[in-house]
């Protein structure tokens, strides 16, 4: 088991192997993610039953929750990539760190906007400086900070080192986002979906939510692979395998 993980780590750490691997995965990953997302959203937005108190306005959950969870997981992935990039100086980790940021930032923004639109009809306000909302806003700023830091430093390796540190430190904020609703008094309610134990959402509403979540996560993964491929080609443009690839008729 450990040996398999180690082999994967070394193989995916090689730009050539990563390029070949992603070429094989992407033609499947992208369509599957889009189909799942379309099915989940159509089911949730059009066919799922109405909610007893909120009526139809709860349906924004099918965009809000997938986007928020994607933004949080993407940030954790950036933290892990940052750790690998800092300690092992692995080039692919630096590439991943850069590839993860833009889509994650978009998801964090989508989460904030849909949350505000949902808050008005349910809570009666677009925004409160509540711990959950404020920490989510900080998550968006962290994403933007990482993108800015990477574009501000010209040398990609130097840029990656600075961004890795910010990515790792920012993971503390992800913990605050997750547990703010349990540790502090907030306007935002606690989590509905639970990994352990029963989720407090009816099955007819839960399945479309899980499908749209999975679809959006896979779409994020596909986007990361596409960005990472471009970045790999750019970084390795002087390497023999890239020249061969480009010169192929």
């Amino acid at each position, binding site marked *: 088991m450990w040996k398999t993980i180690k082999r994967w780590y070394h193989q995916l750490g090689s730009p050539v192997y990563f390029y070949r691997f992603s070429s094989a995965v992407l033609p499947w990953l992208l369509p599957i993610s889009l189909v799942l997302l379309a099915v989940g959203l159509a089911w949730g937005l059009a066919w799922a039953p109405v*909610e*007893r*108190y909120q009526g139809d306005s709860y349906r924004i959950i099918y965009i809000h929750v997938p986007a928020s969870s994607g933004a949080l997981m993407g940030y954790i992935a950036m933290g892990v990539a940052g750790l690998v990039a*800092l300690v092992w100086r692995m080039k692919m980790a630096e590439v991943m760190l850069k590839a993860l940021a833009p889509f994650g930032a978009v998801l964090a923004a989508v989460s904030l906007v849909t949350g505000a639109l949902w808050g008005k009809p349910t809570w009666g306000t677009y925004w409160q400086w509540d711990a959950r909302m404020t920490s989510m806003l900080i998550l968006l700023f962290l994403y933007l900070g990482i993108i800015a830091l990477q574009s501000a430093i010209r040398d990609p390796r130097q840029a990656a080192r600075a961004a890795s540190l910010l990515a790792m*430190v920012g993971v503390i904020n992800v913990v605050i986002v997750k547990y703010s609703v349990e540790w*502090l008094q907030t306007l935002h*309610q606690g989590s509905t979906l639970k990994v352990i134990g029963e989720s407090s*959402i009816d099955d007819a509403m839960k399945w479309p939510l899980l499908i749209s979540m999975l679809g959006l996560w896979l779409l994020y993964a596909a986007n990361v692979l596409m960005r990472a491929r471009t970045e790999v080609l750019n970084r390795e443009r002087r390497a023999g395998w890239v020249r061969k690839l480009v010169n192929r008729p």
Partner: protein
Amino acid sequence: MNPVRKQRLILVLAILAGLAVAVGLAVYALRQNINLFYTPQQVVSGEAPVDTKMRVGGLVVDGSVRRNPETLDVTFAVTDGKGTFDIHYQGILPDLFREGQGIVANGTLISRDRFEAEEVLAKHDETYMPPEVQDALEKAGHPGGAGKTGSDSGYSGGYSESDSGDRPAD
């Protein structure tokens, strides 16, 4: 592991652990300012300041909502099981305002048992179910279905209800 990497790993993890502890302590020290509202217990016990603009939150007590039929004046009691006080508000309440559900009010505490609200926000819990399911649960006498009993709302917003049994454990 190669010793240089090991040293880097230890250094990076030490910095992270230090920062995490620092942030944890800061949040802990500032939690009264980070908490969005005072709980009824804090209001009744005197922890919340009188005559200051602030937010309070709690569950609306069943049967406590009294409306003036001529005006928009409404008075209701909120509780967290450890304290109860009255809130007076003049204006339109949010759609999700109902007895047994949580609210957050922005305004001034006039005395230990009376709060003058300028804005009332509805909290909603993390339970989502279709109306038919709730009807079926109510018919079957299941307490989890009735949204108005106040004991079912599954609050994880920090209300210290004695009987919030379905509070998530994670």
